[in-house]
């Protein structure tokens, strides 16, 4: 396109200047961090791009204070490296969807993008998601005004918690240039207890019993046999069986003790196996990154479905008759990852109906461009809630300049 342009401000002042100019021109923009999530959402983007990739670098990291501040576009790889050195982590298991989305660059994500999409991996059930570890930010609104919220301390109720609103807003409320997050110590040891040969319903009971026990299970998922076979963790793949996986983390003696309790507790449900630290880490990385559906040849549509944990198996079975449908459960049943061959509208209405019966939401994470143009990517909200969200959007971005249509049509 001839009028396609990219603005790449390099300082907060330049960002503000750019936004003010865009506002005066009423020119919509496509906000981009490092572009790792560009394939998620409606593909029709504004001709003009506001490229935030210049805002990089860790400006503050105090491990004993459990806090890190960084430019919003700091690569996750850089963040992870710094955290590794201090034996810390972002406790919500930030996923990396590079392979799932078929990106060439496997380390393309940014910290700001992780927050703006509010994603979380298997530890979500214990530690929360990006929003729970997001302490503060500096941004420029769609009004062309600089604003900030939060701070660098965890305990903070000064003013409205706009950090929560920015997390998961997919760049539709403001352009963040600086973010501050909470970091946590990495557990010393991790092990995973596997219960083999159970179906999704049996898994539901096992996962619930495990999480309701005082053993501090930090992740619980279920994989059918067909997906277990795709794992790169040899010891797991060789089991050649459907499995519930329960992760236990912490100091060594505690992990061994709790694993034993879990093994004893569930040995009557299925054959037990255990993954040790490095195998356990690799296994959960696969679950976190939805690796079972990330093979190059897999071009199915991917839905991410969040429901009450007890509803997960029911949703899976309701949707399992769809063409080439496969699914697995994370978050103790509360997260359904569904892959389906769906040339017609991505099976949207069936997915939405199934979810609405239980309460929750479904988001299309992967799909061909045409499909992403035709259907709603995010779960449609009931009218009063949608109206409220719309009014919020208008109060940050009255001309609808920031990522138009990225979340909902018309916003």
């Amino acid at each position: 396109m001839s009028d396609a342009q990219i603005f790449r401000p390099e300082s907060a002042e330049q960002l503000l200047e750019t936004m003010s100019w865009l506002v005066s021109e009423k020119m919509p923009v496509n906000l981009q961090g490092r572009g790792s999530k560009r394939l998620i959402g409606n593909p029709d983007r504004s001709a003009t791009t506001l490229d935030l990739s210049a805002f990089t670098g860790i400006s503050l990291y105090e491990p004993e204070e459990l806090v890190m501040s960084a430019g919003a576009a700091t690569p996750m790889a850089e963040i992870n490296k710094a955290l590794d050195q201090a034996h810390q982590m972002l406790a919500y298991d930030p996923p990396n969807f590079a392979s799932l989305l078929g990106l060439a660059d496997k380390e393309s994500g940014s910290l700001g993008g992780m927050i703006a999409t509010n994603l979380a991996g298997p530890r979500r059930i214990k530690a929360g998601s990006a929003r729970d570890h997001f302490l503060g930010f500096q941004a420029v609104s769609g009004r062309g005004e600089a604003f900030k919220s939060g701070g660098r301390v965890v305990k903070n109720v000064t003013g409205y918690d706009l950090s929560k609103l920015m997390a998961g807003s997919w760049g539709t409320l403001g352009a963040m240039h600086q973010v501050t997050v909470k970091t946590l110590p990495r557990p010393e040891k991790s092990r995973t207890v596997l219960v083999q040969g159970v179906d999704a319903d049996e898994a539901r009971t096992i996962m619930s019993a495990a999480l309701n026990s005082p053993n501090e299970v930090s992740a619980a998922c279920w994989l059918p046999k067909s997906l277990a076979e795709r794992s790169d963790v040899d010891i797991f793949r060789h089991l050649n069986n459907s499995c519930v996986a329960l992760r236990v983390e912490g100091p060594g003696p505690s992990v061994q003790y709790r694993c034993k309790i879990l093994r004893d507790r569930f040995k009557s449900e299925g054959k037990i196996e255990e993954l040790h630290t490095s195998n356990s880490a690799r296994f959960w990385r696969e679950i976190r990154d939805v690796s079972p559906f990330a093979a190059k040849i897999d071009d199915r549509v991917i839905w991410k479905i969040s429901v009450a944990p007890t509803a997960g198996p029911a949703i899976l079975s309701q949707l399992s008759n769809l063409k080439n449908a496969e699914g697995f459960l994370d978050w103790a049943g509360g997260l359904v990852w569904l892959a389906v061959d769906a040339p017609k509208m991505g099976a949207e209405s069936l997915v939405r109906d199934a979810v609405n019966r239980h309460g929750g939401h479904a988001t299309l994470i992967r799909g061909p461009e045409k499909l992403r143009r035709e259907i709603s990517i995010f779960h449609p909200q009931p009218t009063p809630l949608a109206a409220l969200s719309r009014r919020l959007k208008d109060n940050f971005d009255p001309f609808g300049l920031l990522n138009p249509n990225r979340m909902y049509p018309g916003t």
Partner: protein
Amino acid sequence: MRMPEPDRETLANRQTIAAELRRIVPGDGVIVDEDALRPFETDGLTAYRTLPLIVVLPETVEQVAAVLKYCHQNSVKVVPRGAGTSLSGGALPLADGVLLSLTKFKQILELDYENRCARVQPGVTNLAISQAVDADGYYYAPDPSSQIACTIGGNVAENAGGVHCLKYGLTTNNLLGLELVTIEGEIIRIGGKHLDSGGYDLLGLLTGSEGMLGVVTEVTVRLLPKPECARALLVGFNSSEAGGDCVAAIIAAGIIPGGMEMMDHPAINAAEDFVNAGYPRDAQALLIIELDGPEAEVDYLIEEVSRIARENGASSIRISESEQERLTFWAGRKAAFPAVGRISPDYYCMDGTIPRAKLPLVLSRMREMSDKYGLRVANVFHAGDGNLHPLIMYDANVPGELDRAEDFGNDILKLCVEVGGVLTGEHGVGVEKRDLMGEMFTDEDMAQQQRVKCAFDPKALLNPGKVFPTLHRCAELGRMHIRQGQIPFPDIPRF
């Protein structure tokens, strides 16, 4: 502290408004009698008192919706109220406002263990939730010291914390869903039993919004299985620096205790005088460190923490050997406020947060301020997360002391901001810290926050006069100052 001038027309219409509200809430649910209004005139910040115009105590969501709709249509202000334990004046009534009390919403609607959550009405007390699920082996994690009295609705509105927040999070990290009634009387459900929002995170936004965005009529909270066991250490130090170093070293070792509280010398002695918990009276700082979880883990960590404490110069270490002893360790800390209340006619409880490393600096500056204002101060401190509760002692009957206490408090909070912290960690801004907001936020920051309010409450009827030093009209806030300009920085790469 100035509140907005009461609206004369509303004051004059008091009887009509009461009559209309009686049509919505029959029986004794509408209070106009002055004696009966009196108990509502203040909250936990007792220095401020105002008789509300009317108190209304609805019993159903439909009544709440009808009351709000009526108030909206007639431009009558509304102050939601739970148990009235707010320490920031969040529930302070308005002379021209209806006080909407949620105390009749006392039911626990559903316990769903398989999904590890409970659905409760907003007037249920924080402790009642944990008590209801205790026998089945569960609890609700956030535990403000006021938990016997404060309501879950008030906890949501203030994003309340407690001594276990370091490990288990604040209210905002322990909610799954809300039912909210807007000022227009619309009933909206947000979240449910699933995790995260499919759209904007309104659940997160509403938590801590101090009753200014809507009235919460139902809350779905996360339940946790009770830890297998809990043990505590009581560690004394000869200086607050050493205590602070010990806290940092514990976290640097990768240990996040269930609770980690610090008290300074005056607080230790006030508590010891009151409950005889066996605290070391000569210590300059006392840490209570609680470790919870599986027995094997707790035993292991107790050893680790003892070692770290010794390495950081602990002058005394005691480890609880029984549940009784653990509770005794806590008894002094939990009674710290009333203990200070015993040695001073009045006290003023502050609530700033600082980066933990700044503790020694802040404590020494606080001692200087204490000399300057001629008022004593005792400190209790959520040490793990840097949340400070200085208790300033004064006598309201001595002319000028309350003002001095407030000035002292303001200086402390300004200091918190100066060292990189914030004005309030868990008690909220309310009226108390309203006029200090400018210490942390620019006018533009605050304008953006107020625009959020405009999305919910365009007529600014819900709890006005709280949080923001000046409440601008939404029309004014919506106005855009568009600066026509050149294409920005033409000299840098753009393609």
